[in-house]
C-alpha cells in the first residue's frame, strides 16, 4: 500500500525519490498515472489483455528512463509520449503481422473485451466509442484519443506528439470527417 505521505508529494519530488531507489515513490507514480495510460493504450488498441501488456511496458520503460526526465515538461507529458510510441509501434506490428499472415480487415486486428458496466446503455456507449476509434486511421486515432479521451487541447496535443500546431489542426479536421462516415455506419 502506498503511504499517505507519498500522495502529497509533487511529481518532481516523486521522480527524485525514484531516482534514489525509493520503490514507494515509483509505486505512487504508477498509481497516479495508470488511468491516463489506460485511456491512451486501451483507447487506441481496444480493451484486451494485450493492452495491459503495453500498459506494463510503459511503466517499465519509464522506470528505466526516468533519469532522462529533466523536468522541463510535465511528467504526465513524458509518460504520455512513451505510451503513444509503444502503442503506435504495436499498431504497426499488428498491421505487418495481419498483412502477412491473415486476411482479416483493419478492424479485426483489435479485440473488444468490454468490461462490466453499470447499465446496458453505458456498455453500448463504450462499445460504440471503441469501435469508432479503432476504425480510424492510426494517425488520426492518436489525435482523437488525446482530445476526446484525455481532454488535451490542440496545443497540448501538438506538444505531446511533437507536431506543428497546423498539422494537428488539419488532422483533427480530417479525423472529424472520417469519424462522421464511421459513425453513420455504426
Amino acid at each position, binding site marked *: 500500500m502506498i503511504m499517505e505521505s507519498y500522495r502529497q508529494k509533487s511529481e518532481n519530488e516523486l521522480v527524485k525519490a525514484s531516482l534514489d531507489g525509493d520503490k514507494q515513490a515509483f509505486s505512487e507514480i*504508477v498509481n497516479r498515472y495508470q*488511468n491516463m495510460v489506460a485511456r491512451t493504450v486501451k483507447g487506441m488498441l481496444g480493451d484486451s489483455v494485450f493492452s*495491459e501488456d503495453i500498459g506494463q511496458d510503459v*511503466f517499465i520503460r519509464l522506470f528505466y528512463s526516468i533519469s532522462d526526465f529533466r523536468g522541463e515538461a510535465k511528467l504526465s507529458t513524458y509518460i504520455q509520449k512513451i505510451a503513444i510510441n509503444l502503442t503506435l509501434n504495436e499498431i504497426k506490428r499488428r498491421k505487418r503481422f495481419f498483412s502477412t499472415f491473415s486476411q482479416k480487415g483493419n478492424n479485426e486486428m483489435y479485440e473488444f473485451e468490454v468490461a462490466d458496466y453499470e447499465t446496458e446503455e*453505458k456498455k453500448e*456507449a463504450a462499445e460504440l*466509442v471503441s469501435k469508432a476509434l479503432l476504425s480510424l486511421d492510426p494517425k488520426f486515432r492518436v489525435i482523437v484519443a488525446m482530445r476526446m*479521451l484525455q481532454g488535451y487541447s490542440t496545443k497540448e496535443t501538438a506538444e505531446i506528439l511533437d507536431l506543428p500546431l497546423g498539422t494537428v489542426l488539419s488532422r*483533427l479536421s480530417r479525423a472529424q470527417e472520417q469519424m462522421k462516415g464511421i*459513425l453513420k455506419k455504426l
Partner: protein
Amino acid sequence: MKDMNIPDLKDLILRSLDNDSDPGKTSAEIEEAGVTYKFSEGFHEKVLDTIFSAGDTVVRKIEFVRNLNSVFSRIALTGVAAIVLLMISIFVIQGSLSFDSFLGLGDSYDESIVYLLTGN
C-alpha cells in the same frame, strides 16, 4: 447522471472534435456517458513486481544493449576517420578530389600512399 442515448453520444463525439469545443468538458461528458478505460485489478502490483523482482535481469539486458551501441558507434567513427584519411591522402597525391581517384581509378602509383603513411 442519466444515460446518454446513442444519437446524442454520436453528436457529442463529433462535437468533441470541433476545434472550438472545450476538450476538457467534452471528454468529461464522454466519460460520464460510460466511456472509461481502466487496467484490470492487480495491474499496479504486476508492474511493480515485474520491475523490482526481475530488476537485475532487465538492468543486465539494458547494459548489454548500451554496450553494443557504444561498440557500434566506435566502429562507425573509426570508419569515418579512415574515409577522411583516405580523402586527405588522395588530395595530397592528386592535388584534387575527383570521383575516379576516390574509386582508385586515378593515375597515382600505390607507393605514394605507403610513403605518405609510413614515411619510407
